[in-house]
């Protein structure tokens, strides 16, 4: 499918890439880990970290204590800020406490994953951020505005769990939908559609209808749709839930490359622990009834993450911590 080089090929798109002043410098790989190329070449013949080496990072709540700087920890400007957030749904069976006392700060350029059992409020939180649900308590600001104001300022690209393409529009038309609504010029629309289509490797499919594409391709088109306009915040609700592992790996790689290239802040809901760990600078573990945050893990992983990083002990260590957090949430029930 898509190689990293090809994604970088995005650079020769009409718009010159913006400088990234708030960006952390490229970090060196984590100490005890072999260089990525090295590791990749030694398939099936790996060394594992001694558990001791990973241990200190497991509790690394204070990012400064981490052995190497990661982007998320560079004290970036706050984009999303939730304080004592409460959200109660009134239903026939009585109130449902979907979110309770949620406190979270998300900085500019962070990649934050939300993980937790079904019904813990992940979707609800993302929707509240996007101004699609209205909190019943606490405060929530996005770029210093209310979520609704931010929505009117078109700050979000939202990717839903299912692709949600309109079946009566071609792929290109689907992608230009937000542009059309926001009143972009015809020429601008076309240029942008072409660019994001290339980005998600669907250039040949512009004229096809959604049902003529496989599930994975549809999902990529829906991501392209969210990218077509310049929203600073990308909210993705289990975008890869329906895909098989290999395709998923691919899209994970691509998403990471995209995030590194652009300066977007990403909120990402997933059920998969490896996916959360692989992608994020920050992992938010949630627990249901009432929905609340039980753990926030800042990832010590470097920004450059080949897929094989998932076999490293740091990775496994973080995954373990996430799993424990999840299990604790389940035991509560």
């Amino acid at each position, binding site marked *: 499918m898509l190689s990293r080089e090809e994604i970088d090929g995005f650079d020769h798109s009409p718009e010159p890439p913006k400088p990234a002043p708030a960006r952390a410098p490229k970090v060196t790989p984590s100490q005890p880990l072999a260089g990525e190329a090295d590791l990749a070449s030694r398939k099936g013949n790996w060394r594992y970290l001694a558990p001791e080496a990973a241990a200190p990072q497991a509790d690394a709540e204070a990012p400064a204590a981490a052995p190497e700087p990661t982007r998320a920890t560079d004290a970036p400007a706050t984009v999303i800020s939730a304080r004592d957030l409460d959200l109660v749904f009134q239903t026939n069976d009585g109130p449902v406490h979907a979110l309770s006392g949620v406190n979270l700060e998300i900085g500019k350029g962070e990649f934050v994953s939300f993980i937790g059992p079904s019904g813990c409020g992940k979707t609800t939180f993302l*929707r509240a951020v*996007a*101004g*699609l649900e209205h909190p019943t308590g606490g405060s929530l600001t996005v770029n210093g505005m209310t979520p609704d104001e931010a*929505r*009117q300022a*078109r700050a*979000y*690209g*939202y990717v*839903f*769990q*299912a692709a*949600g393409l*309109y*079946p*009566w*529009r*071609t792929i290109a038309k689907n992608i230009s*939908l*937000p542009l*059309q*609504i*926001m009143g972009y010029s015809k020429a601008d629309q076309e240029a942008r559609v072409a660019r994001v289509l290339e980005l998600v490797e669907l250039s040949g499919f512009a004229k096809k*209808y959604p*049902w003529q594409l496989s599930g994975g391709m549809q999902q990529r088109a829906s991501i392209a749709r969210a990218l077509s306009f310049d929203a600073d915040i990308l909210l993705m609700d289990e975008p890869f839930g329906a895909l098989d592992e290999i395709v998923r790996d691919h899209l994970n790689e691509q998403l990471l490359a995209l995030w590194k290239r652009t300066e977007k802040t990403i909120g990402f809901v997933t059920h998969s622990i490896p996916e959360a760990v692989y992608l994020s600078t920050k992992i938010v573990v949630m627990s249901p009834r009432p929905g609340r945050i039980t753990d926030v893990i800042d990832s010590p992983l470097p920004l450059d993450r080949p897929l094989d990083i998932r076999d490293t002990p740091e990775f496994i260590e973080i995954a373990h911590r996430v799993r424990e957090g999840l299990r604790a949430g389940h035991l509560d029930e």
Partner: protein
Amino acid sequence: MRLILPVLTVVAALVALWYIAAVPMNIKGVLVEAERAGAEVTPPGAAERRDMRSFALVAQNGFAIPATWAQERPRLPAPHQVAVELWETTVEKRITSKRSLIYHAWITLSATLLGFAIGSAAGVLLAVGILYNRAMDMSVMPWAIASQTIPILAIAPMIIVVLNSVGVQGLLPKAMISAYLSFFPVVVGMVKGLRSPDAMQLDLLRTYNASPSQGFWLLRLPASMPYFFTSLKIAAAASLVGAIVGELPTGAVAGLGARLLAGSYYGQTIQIWSALFGAAILAAVLVGIIGLIQRITLKRMGLSQ
């Protein structure tokens, strides 16, 4: 082929059944005629036979069976009689002739089309109103259902008279009755269709901060198209019934309804049946045309796979 064979089989079976049914249906009339013509009939005397079962009569008077398929005014005309009448009144008559079924079908069709246009437009507008106005949503539907329980044939003459008294005459009164019958399926279908986008599709537009009218034109309307065409098909058939009903109280001058009535008045069953089939064919053609437009539209919209 997959479709034609079963249809032909069923049609053949129905035609056979029809011929068989025509025998007991017509036997009494045939025996009366035969008796008057001097044939020996068991038992003799129409009054005698009046309360006898038809099958018994057939059994006792086997010779009369062919005649049951060739009566001039049968209770149930044989299929070939209807076919011959259809042929004679469509192909063998000039279409401007008052005895041409095509002439009458055209008159009915013009009222049908006008009524269909009015009814569908009203239906779509009502559906949009119900969609965007809570008060209309809550008040219109129950009364729309109630409106369809009113026997239209009963109020058709009154509608004609009332419209007449305010100076509306000609095609329009018939079209109004036709519209009355056709708006309902369109309202029901369109409300369903316009509400068919799921929460996710709607939320997507909210994240773009799309205006309500953008939501209508870009999402709800296209999403409603399959429902729209389905209800149009029902509405077309209903419009035709409405136009025929509307022809009765407008003087039954011309049109398929007048044809049915005149046939009925003079006991010309063959003429009734041919008008009936004419109407059914007209309905089939209308529905077929809408189906064609549906296929083309949905294909161009990419909605048919």
